[in-house]
Each structure stands twice: as C-alpha cells, then as structure tokens.
C-alpha cells in the first residue's frame, strides 16, 4: 500500500533500497527498482520466499550498485581460512564476519535466515551492535568463499580483515567488570539486610551471640568484594604511584582499605558492627559507573593502520596465469594486475596499460595522475580505468605511503600531554585529607589513643571521594551517549576532557570541508543536444582546471572528440575546435567573444561557466561548490574562540573562496604532504592544544599527532584512519556545538565535585567530632553518591538540549 502512495506522488521509490528511481523501466509486477542489481537481489529473495524481508522494515535493502568488485578467491587459501575460522572439526566450521552494511531489523532477519539461501549454512546469528554475523556451516556443502559471495550479492559485503580477529580482549574485560559488579551487588544487598537491626537500634534487644554471628557473616560476605571486586582500584593506584602520580584511584583505594581494616577490627574485637555495608556499596556504585562509562562503539575501529586500507589479496601473474595471493606474501619482483578502482598495494613500475592514478585518498589532490609505461607508481593510489600490470619494487611495508607509519607518533603509546583533570584534583585532595586526618588524630591523642585512631580512620572513610569518583564516569558516559546520538562517536571518555581544552582547530580540505564525490553541475539556457554536449566534454577534457574537470565528470556518459587549437586563458576560460566547431567555455564576456573578458566569478558557493558554440551564446553551467552545507556559519562560529587553520594536500585553486571563509589567510596551507601536515601540527602544538579534523590517509599522521583527531566520514562504518573520534559528515556543522558542549560538561563535573565536597565537609565535621556511626556512614554514602550522579546526568541532558544536541 505504501508503495502505491509513493508512486502517486510521482516519485518512484526503489522497492529494494528506497532510493529514488529515474523511471519505471526496471520493474517486476507492481514493484519498481532503481537499478538492475536491486532487482536481482529482490529476485533472489523472492525465489527463496524470503520476501518477508521487505515487510519488517521499509525499503531495507542495500543497493549493491556501488559495490567494489572484490574477489573472494583468496578465501580458499588454507592459511587465510585458518585465521578466519573460529572453530573447525573438519566437518562443521564456524566463523564471524563483520558486516558494516547491516542497519535495520530486516537485515537481522535476512542474515539469520541465511540457511534458506545456502544449504550448507546450518546456523547464523547476528550481533547487531557489533555488526557481526556468526555462522556455522558444513564444509562439505559450502565454503567461506561461497558464503562471502552470497552475502556480497545481497549487498552485505563482509569486511574481512585480519585485525577484526584481534578484538576479543575488550569484551572479556567488560565481562570481568560484570562479574565484579555482580559479586559486589550480592554482598552489598545481603550485608545491608543483615545490618538492618543495627540501623534501627535493635541490637540491644537481641542476643549478643546473635550480634556476633551477623558480624562474622558480614565479614565473610565482604571478603570477595575487598579482594576481588575492588582489585582494579588497587592495581591502578599502585601503577600511578610507581609513575609518581596520585590518581583518582589512590584516595579510593585508601578509603576502601581503611574502611575494610577498621571494620575487620571492630567485628573481631566486637567493639562495633563495622562499615562493611558502606564499603561494599561504594565498590558496587563505582563499578556500575565504570560499566556505564565503558560504552564503546564496537562496530567502529579507531586504531587502524594502513593495513586496513589495503586489500586483503592481490592478483598476481605467475607463469602467464592470474592467481590471487594474500597481500602479506607479496614479494619484490612479483607481477600484479590492478583493476579499475583497485588500490596499488606497493611501490611498483608500470608494465602494461594506461595508468590513471587517483591519489586523492593519500594526498588530498583531487585530479588523477597519468602514468606511462616504465614510470614508478607509489602505493596507495587507486587505478581509474582499465586494468594495469605492474611489477612490485618494494615490500608493502617499505613503500612511500606506509613509511608514514614509521614516524615516532605511531610508536608512542599516548601522545597526550594533558594531565587528566580528575587526577590533578585528586592529588591535592589526597594530601589535604591525609593532613586533616593526621591533624585531627594528633588533637585527640591528648585524650585517648583509641579515639585518635577512631577519628583518623573515620576521616579517611568519609573523605573517600566516592561521589567524586562517580561524577566523572556518569557525566562523561552521558556526554558520550549524547555525542553518539548526534552521530559523533568517540573512542573513549578521556577525549571529552581533551576536547574541552582545545584552542586551535585544523581542517583538511578534500573530503572534510568538501563533500567527497561529485559536485552539482546545472545547465541553464537553451537545451543542449547530445552532439553539443559531446563538444563541450571534448574541450573540457583538455583542461585540468577543477571547473573543467567537474563539467567533464558531469558529462561522464558521453564520448569525446579530437580537439584542435586548444587554448587556456588563466582564470578566464578555455577555447578549442572540435569537428569544425569553435567552442568557448568561460566567463560571460569570454564566452561572448570579448577578448578583454574578466575572470570567472563565484556567486556564493557556485561558479558560473558560460558556453558558446560557433559564436552562438547557449547558456551557462552553474557549478555548485561541493563544500559542505553550513560550512561558512560553522567556521564563523568557531572563529571567535579558536585559532583556525587549513591544511590541504590539494593545489590552491580554491584559495580565494577559502580565504573568504577563514579570514586568516596565513593559516591556509596548500600542497601539503602527509609529513608536512604532521610537522605543521607539531609546530602549533608548542603554544596550543590542537584539534585536527580530517578524513583521508594523508591526514593519518596529523590526526595522530594532534591532541584530538577527528575523522569525518560519510558512512561511519567505512574505514577511517586512526583517530580519537569519528564524525558522520552530516553532523559536520555541529562541530562548534560539540566543542562548546564538551567545555560545559567539564563545568558540570566541577559543579558535581563542589557538591560532593560539601558532603565531604559535612561528614568531616561529624567524623572529627568522633561521632561517625555505621548508620550515619550508611546513609551519607549512598545519598551523596546518588545525588551527585543524578545531578550530573540531568545537567548534561539539560545543557545538551540547550545546545541543540538532542
């Protein structure tokens, strides 16, 4: 029914993928498709009566039309298969694939019904948040290659990467956290229950034997919490001490340790009931905060090296035959074949075919480079056009591109120069608390030793910065979720703190400020026939000016003719003769034949190129710059608070336009190599804290060197270089809000800290007076922690709404 409505609106939507169809030419029964590949997927599903796929979510399909032609032959290689399989007994095998394309419940349904499409698959299961498909199959009936090809044909291209297999450690860490929080929660609940008589002052009514029994039981319950659940705080505190640093975990360790020690003494000496309830509760809340904070974006990879960009396998010619071998076994002297849109994996010499290499991903340069036989082609470029044959000169790891990864930045563990805010606070906090405790103990020493010890431990107990330690994970965890809702995904919560300290923002141009892919070209004037379009394209082909290239690409589907007397007038236009027709392309006056014509002008974001053929003025091409929408506003909002810089690997053709936006011409650099970018950032880091926003491999060094590196991507599941955060390109204009919000969130933390200090001071008064009883501790601890957590979560949500980050 819904499809019918759509057709009435004169907009035909592809039944499979939801894209707009040009016309009704590709259809089946009452369903229409945007392309034959979509129809093909539909037919496969229909044949296997899997059409329910379309009824779960609307237009759920992925159009396979943009798919790169990946060959899966290498999956037959035993060595690779072994690495990919989770398990195999020679009969059934199990493997897990990362499928970034899955996006809706229909995807889950189809992927879990894979057995209907392939007899050999016995079982398949989706982990949606991680975008993983785990499947079991019979090795006699099918193979990894067949399953991959099947998935690929459905549009679910599996991302096979050896790195993907090395990501299991994180989830096991989270599992350990769950164990610990389970144990702590169990002990906390039971100890609370057993302490109820204490809370209500009933212990005087009951038998002292009974009292003893409760005490011992509490002690036994608290043991696993002390030794197991809170162990990572001890480890972290001691690690900090070894590096001569008092981190936030040190006062926590001190608090936990003192509460436990004093409680053990009280229980064994039967002088009191102990504070086991507070201790276990504290550990439970702390661990819960850790779990809240540990949300990570599992399907994304923030630690990519060049290996993830490179293909998994290469086609090699051995004794006249083409075979596919894994990239790792590629050697010097091998002959390889690189097809259209494939990446050149290693520095090599061109041996056959026309090289037309697109280095935009490596250098940011948007024009493909022509290469002739015998020329050296460096790795990382993408061949555009027909297949070429190459001889490998260098090993993969020794090529020009990959040498960037030999730079120091990539070997250093953490390049952050900022000491975390919480750690710097906790240093003063710990010293102050220790001094206070000693002072109070010294005062009471005059009267009695036991009171002095009591006061000393009581101060340490109430000063335990539990509210402080909870404010951090809950605030940052919540901010991270808010960022996630706005399509900005960060590696971990420490990025937020670093973001709030940023003073300079560096942009890359290609792919970051500009939209990757084509720009919009519109022709207005007399309607041109095909022959005229061919003439225009032929002339435009001869020029390397970006506007000519854009017109040329716009007319992709046409042929070209031989052009004579081609001339280029810098900034004004081009002229040439083809098939006896004289074509002028350029500024308005230039096209009308005036020799004193001015330069091509830019109107807002678009340039106008006028056309005349044989003296007849035909109209104008309006070429809209592919800069992101809202870029100017976003930049002008950033200008007041941050130093802005631009590093482009491209030439300076568009400098005039960019200078209008940036207003700081000396901060704009063009023609920068990846190393130049890295060095530039190093340079400004002497005085500033730098945020780098980039996208391609050419920014990899700069992203790593900067204090925070954000990579912009059209599709966040696509590959992006190593970085601290991935921003979906649609949210690009939110960058000022994001920076602003991260500053505010640090203020929220400072406020939470102040609140928790107030609690601490109130409690300290009680403790210094020597009046801290288990019941006061048991009330104060949860009340302070929970109120601080509630405050930080509400405050961050409120501020996010104010900043239009929903």
């Amino acid at each position, binding site marked *: 029914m819904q499809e019918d409505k759509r057709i009435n609106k004169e907009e035909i939507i592809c039944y499979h993928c939801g894209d707009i169809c040009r016309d009704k030419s590709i259809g089946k029964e009452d369903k229409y498709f945007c392309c034959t590949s979509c129809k093909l997927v539909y037919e496969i599903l229909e044949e296997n009566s899997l059409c329910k796929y379309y009824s779960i979510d609307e237009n759920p399909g992925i159009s396979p039309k943009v798919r790169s032609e990946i060959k899966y032959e290498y999956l037959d290689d035993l060595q690779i298969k072994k690495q990919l399989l989770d398990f195999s007994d020679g009969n059934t095998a199990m493997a897990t694939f990362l499928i970034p394309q899955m996006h809706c419940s229909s995807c*889950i*349904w189809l992927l*879990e019904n894979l057995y209907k499409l392939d007899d050999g698959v016995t079982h398949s299961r989706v982990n*949606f*948040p991680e975008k993983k498909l785990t499947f079991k199959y019979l090795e006699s009936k099918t193979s990894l290659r067949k399953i991959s090809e099947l998935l690929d044909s459905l549009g679910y291209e599996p991302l096979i990467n050896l790195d993907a297999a090395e990501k299991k450690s994180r989830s096991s860490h989270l599992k350990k956290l769950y*164990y610990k929080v*389970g144990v702590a929660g*169990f002990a906390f609940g039971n100890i609370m229950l057993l302490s109820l008589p204490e809370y209500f002052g009933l212990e005087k009514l*009951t038998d002292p034997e009974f009292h003893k029994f409760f005490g011992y039981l509490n002690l036994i319950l608290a043991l696993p919490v002390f030794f197991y659940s809170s162990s990572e705080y001890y480890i972290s505190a001691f690690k900090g001490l070894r590096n001569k640093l008092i981190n936030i975990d040190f006062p926590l360790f001190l608090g936990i340790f003192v509460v436990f020690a004093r409680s053990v003494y009280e229980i064994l000496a039967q002088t009191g009931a102990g504070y086991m309830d507070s201790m276990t509760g504290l550990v439970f809340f702390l661990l819960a905060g850790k779990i809240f904070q540990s949300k990570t974006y599992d399907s994304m990879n923030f630690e990519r090296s060049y290996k993830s960009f490179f293909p998994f396998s290469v086609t090699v010619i051995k004794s006249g035959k083409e075979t596919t071998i894994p990239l790792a076994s590629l050697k010097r002297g091998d002959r390889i074949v690189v097809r259209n849109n494939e990446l050149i994996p290693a520095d090599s010499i061109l041996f056959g075919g026309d090289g037309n290499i697109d280095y935009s991903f490596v250098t940011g340069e948007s024009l493909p480079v022509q290469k002739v036989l015998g020329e050296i082609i460096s790795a990382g470029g993408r061949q555009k056009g027909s297949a070429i044959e190459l001889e490998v000169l260098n090993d993969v790891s020794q090529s020009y591109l990959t040498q960037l990864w030999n730079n120091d930045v990539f070997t250093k563990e953490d390049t952050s120069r900022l000491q975390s805010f919480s750690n710097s606070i906790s240093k003063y906090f710990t010293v102050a608390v220790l001094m206070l405790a000693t002072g109070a103990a010294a005062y009471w020493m005059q009267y009695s030793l036991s009171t002095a010890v009591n006061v000393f431990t009581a101060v340490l107990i109430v000063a335990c910065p539990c509210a402080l330690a909870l404010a951090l994970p809950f605030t940052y965890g919540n901010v991270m979720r808010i960022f996630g809702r706005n399509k900005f995904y960060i590696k971990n919560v420490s990025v937020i703190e670093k973001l709030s300290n940023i003073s300079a923002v560096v942009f890359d141009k290609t792919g970051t400020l500009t939209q990757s892919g084509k720009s919009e070209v519109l022709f207005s004037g007399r309607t041109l026939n095909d022959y005229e379009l061919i003439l225009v394209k032929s002339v435009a082909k001869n020029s390397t000016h970006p506007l000519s290239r854009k017109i040329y690409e716009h007319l992709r589907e046409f042929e070209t003719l031989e052009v004579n007397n081609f001339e280029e007038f810098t900034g004004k236009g081009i002229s040439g003769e083809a098939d006896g027709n004289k074509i002028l392309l350029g500024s308005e006056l230039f096209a009308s034949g005036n020799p004193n014509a001015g330069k091509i002008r830019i109107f807002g974001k678009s340039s106008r190129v006028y056309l005349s053929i044989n003296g007849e003025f035909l109209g104008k091409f309006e070429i809209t710059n592919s800069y992101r929408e809202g870029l100017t506003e976003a930049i002008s909002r950033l200008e007041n608070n941050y130093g802005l810089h631009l590093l482009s690997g491209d030439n300076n053709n568009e400098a005039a336009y960019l200078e209008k936006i940036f207003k700081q011409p000396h901060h704009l650099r063009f023609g920068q190599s990846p190393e130049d970018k890295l060095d530039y950032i190093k340079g400004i880091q002497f005085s500033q804290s730098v945020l780098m926003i980039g996208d391609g491999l050419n920014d990899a060094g700069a992203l790593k060197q900067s204090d925070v590196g954000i990579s912009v991507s059209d599709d966040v599941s696509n590959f992006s270089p190593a970085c601290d955060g991935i921003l979906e390109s649609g949210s690009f204009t939110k960058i000022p809000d994001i920076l602003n919000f991260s500053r505010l969130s640090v203020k929220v933390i400072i406020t939470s800290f102040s609140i928790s200090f107030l609690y601490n001071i109130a409690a300290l008064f009680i403790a210094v007076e020597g009046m801290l009883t288990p019941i006061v501790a048991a009330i104060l601890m949860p009340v302070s922690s929970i109120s601080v957590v509630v405050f930080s979560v509400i405050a961050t949500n409120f501020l996010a709404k104010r900043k239009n980050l929903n």
Partner: protein
Amino acid sequence: MSVIVVLIGISVLVAGGFLIAFLWAVRSGQFDDKYTPSVRMLFDDDKKDETKSS
C-alpha cells in the same frame, strides 16, 4: 534464636544461587549483545508463515 540463624543461612544460599545464575549468564554471553534479541523475538516463526502462504 537459632531458627533465625537457619533462615538467614537459607536466604544467603538462595541469594548465592542467584549470584551464580548471574555469573553463568555473563559467562555464556547473554550480556554480550543487549539489542539483537529484543528484535529477534518479534520475528514470526517460519511455520506460521508457511501456513499463511499455502
């Protein structure tokens, strides 16, 4: 009094049983993916589907 001791012993045992159940659930991977099962349970069974279409 001793009856309370017995009762508390039993209650701790029961609570311990739940703790073990929780640890087992984590261990067997029930907390690995907290989203997909919520979608999966909404899919109709295939048997129903076949009777509808036939």
